[in-house]
């Protein structure tokens, strides 16, 4: 098993947001997590990736046979966990090229590899740019600076393609995307899918799931997974609305 979350409780500033959550992800699988706003989906992503201030008060997060809850965020990233941010930040003055080169070489160093030669790196950039259909004028800019909402999301997938993570969490990568951009993002994910990696796709709408077909769909409500099923669950949820869930979770 790649990711095994057991009875996880997460608090922000003492307030419990995730309330006893279980999730199991195997290599080769795509899991979708759906649920209304404010339910704790991004909080879950932050807890898995080790963001400070998100306190695990109970439970365990197992990744590749180790409990990672004490591990720093950068080490988790170096172990192959990637987050496509719901709100990517801007880093003025730091070019995308410099940023990604620093990231790739940090990850290589962690694995005991020498820095990637400049030529090889540039070739890799070109290749992945094509994959996500991202323009050079964006990659020559500072990280996310002056990017539109859609471009920021594409840029997240571009970074994912460069880093080739084992576990990728996509936090509402589809929101704010037009249909073409959505297709491009989905294409990027589908081309990276393999028997060796897994995806957790957080989304509001089942629309994305027409393009990235999940093996499992989980519905989150008030800090817990209240229902799991096949991809049909997404359709059912969209049809009946989140009100239907409320009844479910109270039941």
């Amino acid at each position, binding site marked *: 098993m790649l990711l095994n979350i057991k009875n996880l409780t997460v608090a922000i500033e003492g307030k419990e947001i995730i309330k006893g959550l279980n999730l199991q992800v195997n290599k080769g699988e795509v899991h979708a997590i759906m649920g209304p706003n404010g339910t704790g989906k991004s909080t879950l992503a932050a807890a898995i990736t080790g963001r*400070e201030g998100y306190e695990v008060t109970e439970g365990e997060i197992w990744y590749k046979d180790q409990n990672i809850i004490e591990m720093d*965020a950068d080490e988790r990233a170096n172990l192959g966990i990637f987050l496509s941010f719901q709100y990517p930040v801007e880093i003025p003055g730091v070019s995308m090229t410099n940023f990604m080169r620093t990231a790739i070489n940090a990850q290589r160093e962690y694995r005991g590899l020498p820095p990637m030669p400049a030529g090889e790196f540039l070739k890799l950039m070109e290749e992945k740019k094509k994959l996500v259909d991202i323009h050079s004028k964006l990659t020559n800019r500072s990280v996310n600076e002056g990017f539109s909402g859609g471009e920021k999301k594409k840029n997240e997938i571009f970074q994912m393609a460069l*880093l080739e993570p084992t576990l990728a969490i996509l936090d509402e990568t589809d929101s704010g995307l037009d249909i073409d951009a959505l297709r491009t993002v989905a294409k990027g994910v589908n081309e990276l899918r393999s028997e060796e990696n897994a995806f957790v796709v957080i989304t509001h709408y089942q629309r994305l799931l027409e393009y990235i077909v999940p093996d499992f769909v989980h519905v989150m409500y008030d800090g817990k997974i209240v229902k799991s099923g096949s991809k049909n669950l997404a359709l059912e949820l969209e049809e009946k609305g989140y009100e239907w869930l409320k009844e479910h979770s109270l039941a």
Partner: protein
Amino acid sequence: MSDQTNNNILDEVTKGEYKFGFYTDIENDLAPRGLTEDTIRFISAKKEEPEWMLEFRLKAFRHWQTLEEPEWAHLHHPPIDFQDIIYFASPKKKPQLNSLDEVDPELLETFDKLGISLDEQKRLSGVAVDAVIDSVSVKTTFQDTLAKHGIIFCSFSEAVKNHPELVKKYMGTVVPYTDNYYAALNSAVFSDGSFCYIPKGVRSPLELSTYFRINAANTGQFERTLIVAEEGGYVSYMEGCTAPMRDENQLHAAIVEIIAMDDAEVKYSTVQNWYPGDKQGKGGVYNFVTKRGLCKGNRSKISWTQVETGSSITWKYPSCVLMGDNSIGEFYSVAVTNNYQQADTGTKMIHLGKNTRSTIISKGISAGRSNNSYRGLVKIMPGAVNSRNFSQCDSLLLGDQCGAHTFPYIDTRNQSSIVEHEATTSKISEDQLFYCNQRGIDTEKAIGLIVNGYAKEVLNKLPMEFAVEAQKLLSITLEGSVG
């Protein structure tokens, strides 16, 4: 959350050490400790100076004795005992200037350690270097190449001997010894420095560079640099400096004068990395420097670019006097302070000529318990019609125990000129740090990356040879500081 998080990061990230803190055991010729007229006569005699030079020194000394140390800067330090300083130290084995083989091998090794190549074989770098250790210039490279273009690039002492008419004509015309306390002191006791003369219509084919090193204990360093660019001349000049780690404070009081005639351009870049003191604020160099450029000719241009990472105290305002019509002054600065460092730095742009323009970009970065002040004056005189200034002063705070201050003074005396001033203060956001961490970049590297991005506008102004060194320095200076 973010305050808590920032503090944690502050505690977590550990020690950054000064990488240039070694000391080289070189036999020295020292002046007796303290400062009297005899000291000045001693220095002048050691340097075999002509009478007029000694007279200049003595006048400056007598003036200095009437002055009080300035206290207006946003700086705090115990009183400096000017009688407890050695004002002159020179390596005993007097190196020959025409052959590298005759330079003390210990000295060469010192410069090797600093990554400064004095070896003329290594022409690839294309940089001519004047190396000044303690009080004496030990080696100037590429002199022959430069001489072919009529460019004079030598130590100040040599210039006094070989080009007295030029030195007499220009020395003290931009920074007179009456200018301020430290300028008077420097004029009395200055030991060496660099002299550079670009004749009419010549663009220097090489970057010129001076490398200063304080080595001996209890000595002050008082160097003096004079750059003259005649009509249509161009030169890009770089200055670097380091010092050993010592517990006591060392005094550095320098003067740099630049003169640009019609259509001449001088770019002066500094990477200042004197020893900043230890984490408790013990030791470090007191850096009191007067740098000023005179845009004497029409359409002349002087630009100062500085990266200030060292010194326990920095007091420094590289300035431009825009005398020629349509002349241009620029000041680009990154000043980083960490631990207990204090910096009070900025510029003065004095507009005298018509249509003169000046640009000021200042990036202050403070960490630890340091204090970082920008102090600037933009003065537009009545005759400077249609002049323009744009100033931008940004401060970045790392942690919550450091201080950033901005003191912009604006004095406009005509109606047709425009002065714009923008200022911002920001912190490294926890969001940015996490974003980097999530890509596998550790917090220390992330801070280096973000800070270099923040300072990019200024770093881009540095010559290539310096830019890489400066970027590394920024990261190193902030190691172990941050949140």
